């Protein structure tokens, strides 16, 4: 039986081929063909193929709203603990990320969680005698010190729209605080909340001073390059960056920390979300083999290999992290709030991400205020987000 397996992770091709070899060795008679597509067009291609009835047997799908797009139309095979027993062990948020909200049905095996935090160049920190900051002021002071030393404190640029969201929540989660998140979810507050707008103001102040000159015109790959080449000391980003930086510069030594809150007492929160999952085609010809393959993809054995080779936080319970950095990220994950817009506000249009990305770009170019952003987000989301409709 031949399975086709589609993915947008072009950079992970070699690793996946290895995993597949393992699977094929264990399951004679099943062969898996791994095909990758350019990430930005993956949605289009997958939608087209599914709609055209020639989709792959197994595929990577997005999480949250991105999953619903595909799942609601009935293209995906529903997964249960019967068909994939290992799923029973998965953490609830991970399962939720790959389920449709309306009926709670699960459609994919979650494969990785990502954490928004601050990555730093530990050699530069050491050379300049800087410690992981405990308060926002520490962070500012450390940045100033780096700047004085002629080092770019933060590598980030915001020309690439989605980086704005990363920067906002990578830096601002602790400033917003868990209470804000809970109240927001409970519907007792909205984005005009001062905790939120205050956080935005702080992030903006930091960016204006310690992001590279002209950071609003700096695109994502250049920002990565600035960090990995050692020209900048810190990078606000996802845990997925770690692997990239290592590839770009194998010699780089990195550390991670959660951006601090106002005071040392404030909980240091990272933004956490689930990246995507593996799903089976409801109309696939080899569904049985596909489920078998999904079972493999949900197995701890795979999770371990996944974590080891791809340097990513597998969602499979029980996976341990050889890589100290990953272990540290895993540690930080214990104190987190969800990556807000992705996890909760991408179910309708305009999505929270669309709004925050554009509004932050405005803020960074001085064309709006944090308060106005709060207003814009709340009214914008009110278009489809029930709790804000009032």
């Amino acid at each position, binding site marked *: 039986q031949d399975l086709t397996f589609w993915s947008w992770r*072009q950079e992970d091709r070699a690793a996946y081929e290895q995993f597949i070899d393992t699977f094929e060795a264990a399951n004679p008679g099943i062969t898996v063909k791994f095909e990758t597509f350019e990430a930005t067009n993956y949605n289009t*291609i997958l939608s087209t193929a599914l709609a*055209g009835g020639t989709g792959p047997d197994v595929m990577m799908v997005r999480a949250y709203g991105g999953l619903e797009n595909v799942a609601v139309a009935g293209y995906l095979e529903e997964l249960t603990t019967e068909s994939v027993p290992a799923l029973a062990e998965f953490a609830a948020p991970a399962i939720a990320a790959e389920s449709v909200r309306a009926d709670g049905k699960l459609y994919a095996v979650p494969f990785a969680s990502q954490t928004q935090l601050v990555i730093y160049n530990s050699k530069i920190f050491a050379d300049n005698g800087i410690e992981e900051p405990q308060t926002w002021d520490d962070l500012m002071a450390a940045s100033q010190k780096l700047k004085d030393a002629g080092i770019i404190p933060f590598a980030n640029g915001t020309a690439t729209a989605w980086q704005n969201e990363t920067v906002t929540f990578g830096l601002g989660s602790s400033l917003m605080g868990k209470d804000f998140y809970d109240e927001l979810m409970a519907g007792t507050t909205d984005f005009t909340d001062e905790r939120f707008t205050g956080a935005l103001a702080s992030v903006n102040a930091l960016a204006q001073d310690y992001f590279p000159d002209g950071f609003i015109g700096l695109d994502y790959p250049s920002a990565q390059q600035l960090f990995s080449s050692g020209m900048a000391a810190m990078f606000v980003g996802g845990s997925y960056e770690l692997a990239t930086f290592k590839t770009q510069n194998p010699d780089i030594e990195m550390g991670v920390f959660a951006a601090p809150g106002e005071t040392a007492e404030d909980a240091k929160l990272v933004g956490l979300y689930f990246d995507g999952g593996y799903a089976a085609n409801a109309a696939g010809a080899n569904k049985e083999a596909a489920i078998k393959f999904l079972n493999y993809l949900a197995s701890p054995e795979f999770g371990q290999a996944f974590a080891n080779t791809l340097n990513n936080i597998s969602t499979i319970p029980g996976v341990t992290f050889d890589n100290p950095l990953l272990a540290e990220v895993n540690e930080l994950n214990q104190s987190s709030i969800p990556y807000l817009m992705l996890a909760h506000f991408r179910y309708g249009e305009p999505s929270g991400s669309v709004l925050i990305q554009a509004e932050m770009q405005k803020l960074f170019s001085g064309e709006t205020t944090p308060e106005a952003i709060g207003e814009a987000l709340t009214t914008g989301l009110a278009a489809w987000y029930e709790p804000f409709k009032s």
Partner: protein
Amino acid sequence: MSAATTSYYDRKGILGTLGRDGLLQIILIANTIFMLAPIVIMVFSAFKTTPQIFQSPFGIPDFTQVQNFIKIWSETNFLRYLANSFVVTGASMVLILTLGTMAAYAIGRYAFTGANFILMFFLAGLTLPLKLAIIPLFMLMRDLSILNNQLSLIFVYTAMGLPSTVFIMTGFIRTLPNELEDAARMDGASEARIMWSIMLPLVRPAMVIAGIQNVVPIWNDFFFPLVFIQNDNLKTLPQGLTTFMGEYTTDWGVLFSGLTLSAAPIIIIYIVLSRQFIAGMTSGAVK
């Protein structure tokens, strides 16, 4: 210079002429530099490492540093992609120019009822956002059983290229003098012969233009191959390379050598054919 004392045709004319041509010459030279510089930078960058690109974008690289190319060469099916691109682009261009010229000729040379309507139909084809139609198109290809087949690309490209080709060629064909057609008709030429031997040679520039207008997007397109072609052996150059370059998103050196490699065949062909190209352009004199 005092114009009052300069006699009417002593010098003013000469200077005037020189000045004008001089200005045009300066425009041309400036433009040429501006046109070529980015391409030179691209080629240079292909031989550099990423930090080198950032630090000295204009620097002349060490041309023996071909590891970027080697990487592409060894990790992709480069020659196969190249061959596929040639097949797809070549076949599409042949179809586009043949069919496009046919339609344009009919519309441009014969006054028949509906000519204008047909032209508008093609013009509408020019304005349609074909990306939207990707799903129906995909199903169509599936029903024709040419998914994962280069025919699907060739057909889509041909259909995409026809509107602009018809549009461009009609404009040129329309303005050819009737008397040549009359003369050929008197010479006993059939309609087909008039078209082939008399009119078409005179619209070679239009064909060149239509060709250029279409060959580049087709050569560089990766959207349709992405959707229609999954078999690695059938992938075209841009598709093959973007898939590959996805793995090197931040390695500008490799990126540029990929770009250089995918642009090189068409640039080389262009330069090699530039003589014919220019000859084709100048063959349009109708009198």
